[in-house]
């Protein structure tokens, strides 16, 4: 098993339970610390208790819209990078998200390699922005 990414905590927020859980499992297999949440409430609670490095966030959520969750995450833990994941095809949705502070956006279904690349890039950005925190988590 890979162990190089142990410092990276990833939170997956998706109302599709199976998707979130499976993705978390796969990320864990690759050495990440992965958390999964299926609603906005859980997601925000997890963000506060285990501040993740990267959040993978579905835009369409039943209780709060992805944008609102994005704003709340950015407010409570500004250093966290958020990658938007959406099944809805509009590129403009993603662009809106990036304007609102998301790191990037991806369209479902996404290949593992693309996702890993994006997570690593997000993590690099986070470390570059907050060099003093590197390795402390």
């Amino acid at each position: 098993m890979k162990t190089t990414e142990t410092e990276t905590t990833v939170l997956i927020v998706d109302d599709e339970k199976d998707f979130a859980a499976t993705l978390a499992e796969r990320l864990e297999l690759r050495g990440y610390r992965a958390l999964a949440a299926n609603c906005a409430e859980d997601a925000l609670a997890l963000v506060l208790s285990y501040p993740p490095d990267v959040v993978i966030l579905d835009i369409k959520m039943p209780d709060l819209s992805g944008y609102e969750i994005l704003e709340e995450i950015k407010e409570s833990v500004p250093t966290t990078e958020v990658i938007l994941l959406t099944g809805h095809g509009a590129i403009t949705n993603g662009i809106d998200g990036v304007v609102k502070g998301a790191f990037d956006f991806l369209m479902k279904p996404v290949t593992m390699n693309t996702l890993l690349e994006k997570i690593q890039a997000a993590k690099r950005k986070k470390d570059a922005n907050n060099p003093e925190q590197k390795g402390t988590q």
Partner: protein
Amino acid sequence: MNHIRKKLATFFLKKADTEIGESSALKSRYKQFRLTLLVTITLIAMLPATGISVFGYFQYMLLLEQQERVHLNWHLEDSKQKLETFIANSPVPPSADELDRLLPTINAQLEIFLVDWDNRLVTSSESYGDKGDLCELNAVQLDDGISTVKKRWWMGMTFQGSAPLAGTDWILVLTNDGPLSRATWVSFQKNLVLTFVLFLGMGLLIIYQLVSILTSRIRESDAKRMALLSEAEHSDKLASIGRLAAGIAHEINNPLAVIDQKAGLIEDFLDFSEDFTHKDRLNRSILGIHEGVQRCKVITHRLLSFARRMESRLELIVVNDLILEVMGFLEKEALYHQIRVDLDLAEDLPQIESDHGQLQQIFLNIINNGIDAVGLDGSIQLTTQKLDDERVQVTVTDSGPGIEPEILKHIFDPFFTTKETGKGTGLGLSITYGLIQRLGGTIQVESEPGRGTSFIIALPVHHRVINENNRN
């Protein structure tokens, strides 16, 4: 001459064009309309005209009659006076032979003779009998002694004046065929009828032409309206199917992501496990799942891009360069199929305000379709031309088998495909149609089985804002 011929040809072609696609019921309705209009206008225009000409004819006749009456009256008075003077001055009453000789000297212009009160001729008349015969005219007409007029409408007019001579039992009669003698009168009538018929014919011709022009105008505007209606209907259909498609695509995308992840997880576990029986086959199965998911993904993404409301990024585009660029992508494909690509690019094309990516997709779709249609060993022709100051036209013509009219009708419909299952989603041309509409352009297709197919795309030079409702 050529110029006129060309105009005539376009006129007839246009006419023929508008007639295409009209049902026979509609055609007969236009015919009926034309006939009704023709009869109505004829009645409205021709009845007063006929009335006026008949009225004028009678007025003219009355005028002639008046003149003739005055003329005859003068002669009658004059002759009567002369004759009465002669008789009064002669010691013996003159004999009939004497009178025969005398009368022409009294009035040389008109026919002059005497009758008695029984209407028997006293002197001989040129036209109405010999001495002693009963006069063919009723000469004993008026007792007041002033002239009367004898008319014969159909044969012409004979004016007749009778006056009793004082001191005798005779009546002086003067007749005149007048300026309208029998012969001239008949020819006058002939001319009159001929003129009337001629005017009637010309009038009818003018009315017929007017009615034809009117009908064809109405027909043209009807055809235009119908075309607009059917286009609106089509884009409406596209819009609603687009929404449906987007909904379905979105719903499918989620479980698809789950399938993909689950398969990925299994794959991960397989990667991290040691060899065991059937590991290879499991791996291959997982690969199959991934491929299936990939295919679904292509479809859902296409559906979404078909439905998506994407903001166009406008920039100035050199259409010829864009075509060359697209051909760059497809060159290998064409070469592989031994398809000759002829480029006929106009040099005076203005740059257009449009979306580069969307235009690329449009031409990729259409040219790709052309390549698929031609198959092996044919040709594709790309033509660009300036339509007017506002539009640029790109024509893509292939030498493929052409398209049946039945299929041609549905060619832009979503999910309509003639390709084998799995080879085409039936969305390519729908997407192309939607993109062109979004860019403010139009696309037409012309095809005949066995003679190839032409896609004619007109793009606006300046981008126009399109109605939001038609953009889904």
